[in-house]
């Protein structure tokens, strides 16, 4: 195995995630795409960790942190979406245009 294959795979997964983030209207699906991006990052972490033979397994540890933080993010994110839905009766991102005054 070479590092390149993992990197390319990670990049592809990440780009797909980005694509999802950019195109999905439904907020839940945006979050879901973010999870894909996180997974891509994790792949890179673990691949580099194995490649570097890190004594303290820093890459793996960090991917664990990413998982944990990702889980937290989903929790909070869904809670926010829930709140928005409750207030605006919609979970569509493009209707959240309060930024445009």
């Amino acid at each position, binding site marked *: 195995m070479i590092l390149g294959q993992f990197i390319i795979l990670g990049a592809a997964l990440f780009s797909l995630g980005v694509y999802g983030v950019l*195109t999905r209207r439904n907020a839940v699906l945006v979050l879901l795409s973010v999870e894909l991006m996180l997974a891509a990052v994790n792949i890179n972490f673990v691949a580099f960790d194995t490649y570097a033979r890190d004594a303290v397994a820093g890459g793996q540890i960090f991917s664990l942190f990413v998982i944990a933080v990702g889980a937290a993010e989903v929790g909070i994110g869904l809670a926010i979406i829930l709140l928005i839905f409750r207030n605006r009766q919609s979970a569509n991102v493009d209707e959240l*245009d309060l930024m445009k*005054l």
Partner: protein
Amino acid sequence: MLQLLATANAALLATEEGGHAAEALSDGGLLASMAWLIPVVPMVAAFAIVFYGKRMPYKGWDIAIAVMGFEALYGTALLLAHIANPIAHDFQIEIARIGSMPIEWGWAVDGLSIMMYFLVGVVGFFVFLYAKGYMEGDIRYTWFFASFTLFAGGMLVLVSAPNMIQLIVGWELVGVSSWLLIGHYWEDHANSSAAIKAMITNKVADVGLFVGAIIVSMSVGSFRFSDILHAVETGAAEAPTLARYAFWAGLALFIGAMGKSAQFPLHVWLPDAMAGPTPVSSLMHAATMVTAGVFLVGRMFPFYLTEGFATEVRSVIIIVGALTLFLTGLIALVQDDIKKVLAYSTLSQLGYMTAAMGAGAYTAGLFHLFTHAFFKALLFLGAGSAIHAVHSNNMSDMGGLKKDMPYTYWTFVIGSLALAGIVPFAGFFSKDEILASIRYASGEFSVADGGGSLASIVLVLAISGAFITAFYMARTVFLTFHGEYKGDGHPHESPRIMWVPLVGLAVPSAVIGLINIPGATEVFTKLVGGREIPVLDHHAESFDVAMLLAGLAAALLGIFIGWRIWGPDKETQPARDTFRIPLLYPLLENKYYIDDFYMDGVIRPIRGPVARAINWTNGYVLDFIINGAGLLAMSVGKVVYWFDQRGVDGAINASGAVTGAGGGMLRLLQTGKVQQYAILIFAATVIMVGGLVIWF
């Protein structure tokens, strides 16, 4: 004290051994090495008076008089020791080193400075004594003595200076104490203005002093006078830098001297300085402080005398001196204020000293400085005594004081005779020496090309000056002490504390000239000649009979005419009082319009339009640019924001044409939709990072 006696004794022995054994210069022993007390004691005392003066029995005067007594004694002791055995030694204490040049405090003990120590000490002592009576009941009695002592200290710092730095320090200290004392009654705007005028005029001249001192010191690489004068002594070839800038340095230093010694046209401050209490006028603006300029030229004299250095400057000096002595003497003729008369007379006498210096007569100039200090101090104190009695400065309020104030009268007459140059009073000898020196300069001692004829003109002016001097002094004496009393109340003699100093000063005024009779006594010549670097000036070995007679005749004529006009006849007096010479009188009355020129031509424009223009520039030009830039940035920001907020959307909504021409792109940019912003962010990131990737 034992040491003092021992030194004097040894010195006497040395003189007895032979005439020229005294030429060997001694370092003065303990007496000289303790001479640092001379400048330091009054400085410390000034602070002591400020803080503790009020608690003393005589409110600070006691400290001051003790200090001046000490100065007088120490000065006399040094003088005696020096006469016995010439002392010339510099003491230096390094206080810093800047680059490789040391900065030092120190004290010079040589003929010139000893003469000044003695002068400041003795005259100062009498004036301080007198001041107790004169200032009795003053609102700021203690403060007066503090500043007066500070002045004495400053003057002694100045004359004890063995280097340029200390000279400047003393110079400015004297200036400041002068400012304090002229403005002593600062409640009155005129007085503080006079004080400021004195300080500013001196400051203008100080530019010259600074520049001159800098040029000289930097060229030689040392601030010490001894080093500078050694460089001069070795000749222009050995000190090329100094020689190259000698003219400018000499001129600049002389400009500095013109300020303190109130030479034309920087003399304007001195008459106004009479706003201070009379003892101040007496000590500072007659006897000592104003001699600082002459002292400076004397200190640097070899520089002005040695070929290859600042010899050309001497023609400037002599012209300035002659103009001063003549023009200011004339003004004295028309003054009513007795102190103003004496002030202009002081200017005139300072002109004599300066002219003598310019003529290359070191000894003569300093001798006149020496004698003048005594009789001018005496005259001021006498005038003060009269003012004290009649509560007015104006001679038109006096008259007939002779019978009420005998001590004042007789001492004043002695002073006047001395000033007028009547034999055998002090002024006679010194003025005669100056005339002789100028004549000598006009004959053999070429000042510059064509300098001979220049000195001849100066000679004529100087002899006329002698006449004018005698004339206005006669006027003063007759108007003040003779005739009918014209003021209010009944005048009476001043208290003893005031007339004792008058007598004390009258004695030297009468006899001190005898110490330097050409061909007979040469105590003074040896005194001021006792310096490390000898001053090779011309000094007459015998009387110049022609000049002696000319000067004496001019003086006697002056007194005679004065007596004819203001003396005996009472009936015609009012007519004469109101008589005005048509053209000359307004000119003199207005002091040649010089003051007006300075005020309206220089000071007011600078304080007014020029300063306001600069301030305007600051507010309206520089700040305009700054504020303009700031406000411009702000309005650009506002436009962008407006464009951002309304312009784009508004335009799109309003006009389909705009939509067609790229409206889609713009709408994409500004939708308020998060994801489209996100696209842009990602795109921008990709482009930027891509750029970097391609770059490396």
